């Protein structure tokens, strides 16, 4: 499991501006200027957010065009989803054993 990648993904998702950027990108690719428009932050600040999102693998940015349009990558989000499923499985197992434990301490197996 690429936990470093996941760590970056969750850190990236913890910021409301970055989540809003991802929402916008879910509608289609956009340039920095287009992404900055709805926010009360400067294009350089948007660029910093984009670097965080890019490191987390959540977006990709064109190396070709001068405007470097940004697109959303869904793979990192799938990985976050997989983490949540693993977390759920861990607790399900613990609850199975807690149930058995509670039967034992009460001396009434079912």
């Amino acid at each position, binding site marked *: 499991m690429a936990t470093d990648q996941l760590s970056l*993904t969750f850190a990236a998702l*913890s910021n409301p501006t970055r989540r809003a950027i991802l*929402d916008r990108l879910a509608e289609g690719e956009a340039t920095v200027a287009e992404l900055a428009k709805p926010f009360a932050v400067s294009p350089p600040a948007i660029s910093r957010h984009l670097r965080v999102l890019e490191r987390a693998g959540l977006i990709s940015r064109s190396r070709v065009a001068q405007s470097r349009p940004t697109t959303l990558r869904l793979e990192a989000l799938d990985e976050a989803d997989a*983490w949540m499923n693993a977390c759920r499985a861990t*607790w399900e197992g*613990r*609850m199975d054993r807690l149930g058995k434990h*509670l039967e034992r301490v009460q001396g009434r197996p079912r």
Partner: protein
Amino acid sequence: MRADREVRITRTFNAPRELVFRAWLDPEEIVAWMAPAGLEVPRSSVHVDGRVGGRIEYSMVDPSSGQEYPVVFEIVELSEPELLLFESPAQPELGFPARTSTRVVFEVNGDQTTVTITQGPHTDGTIQDAQAGWTSVLDDLDALLA
């Protein structure tokens, strides 16, 4: 739709609420049920300071390799026998990439007790915002994955 994504576990036990609650804070009982399948929790590794600001600590040991995995739950809220709110530091080696919040609610259900566990990354903001933050992340994930 969001419920599919949320790490929320609900279980109902044939036991009084006080008994279920104490199983979370009693070192002897933690040994009995906290270790995931295939790992052991040595009694000597379990330390519980069962109050707000205290913590539950233990190690999970892989008997085949001897590898130890420490686990920490910091107690942020404790209202016996209804509620426990934990925070845990990031533990990438255990697959917990970010600081997490774990909320455990104990409800009386006739002769039974229903336990609801919600776990997710602890996001920016106060403890009170943690739940909202996690839900918001999940909403966004949902929207993005839809």
